[in-house]
């Protein structure tokens, strides 16, 4: 995989975990903003080594371990896809289908149903907060 992209994924993985942990513990703006800035700094530091997400977000991984597993499988799937796209495999479509089938077969993988962004998902008070602020 392209190294720069790989490092960026390390940063984004950290962002998911750190923000999940922070939002699970508080709704105060100051720590949330501090966590957001730490995520931005971390992403731009181009981390060579993937963060240990269980240490980044210990409460999240113990309290919402099924969601954490969903993130883990999504991360693995994303990285596998980008690795495939960057490779010189002849039949990428076939490999993509295989990766997708394997991913969707995982019990903890996210549902194959379409995300309902405009009703259920965005019906929560905090759902559009990031979108509105940024």
């Amino acid at each position, binding site marked *: 995989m392209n190294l720069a992209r790989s490092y960026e994924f390390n940063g984004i993985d*950290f962002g998911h975990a750190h923000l999940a942990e922070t939002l699970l513990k508080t709704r105060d703006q100051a720590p949330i903003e501090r966590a957001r800035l730490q995520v931005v700094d971390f992403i731009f530091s181009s981390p*060579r080594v993937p963060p*240990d997400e269980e240490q980044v977000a210990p409460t999240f991984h113990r309290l919402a371990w099924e969601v954490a597993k969903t993130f883990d499988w999504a991360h693995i799937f994303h990285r596998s896809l980008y690795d495939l796209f960057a490779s010189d495999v002849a039949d990428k479509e076939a490999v993509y289908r295989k990766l997708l089938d394997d991913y969707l077969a995982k019990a903890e993988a996210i549902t194959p149903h379409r995300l309902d962004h405009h009703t259920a998902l965005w019906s929560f008070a905090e759902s559009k907060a990031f979108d509105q602020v940024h």
Partner: protein
Amino acid sequence: MTKSIDRLSFHFNGGYEFLTGSTQAERDGRCEFALGASYPVGAPTFTRATIVTDVFAEQPVTRGDSTVVGTEVGLRYQLTPSIVWDVGVGTEFAGPAKRSVFFAITGFSFGF
């Protein structure tokens, strides 16, 4: 067995080591126990280094000798996505006279 409180983890490990080539005065196996703790230094923004410390007890190889009891402290550092470096120092503060008053150990783990 591990119990974690936030990022601080406590560990209890028990094991049995099979020893070959033992003489009649020596055991052909011994029990080992360790009670330890670990903490990632710098988390959440830095999770590559973990401090580890423990107290351990090992049955001596020679029958009739007293149990070796010691303590050690070490660092586990992730060098690359697939290589981890471990380094530690310790002392065996109780046990037979030939116990190690000071020891140091280091090694690498490779993921593949």
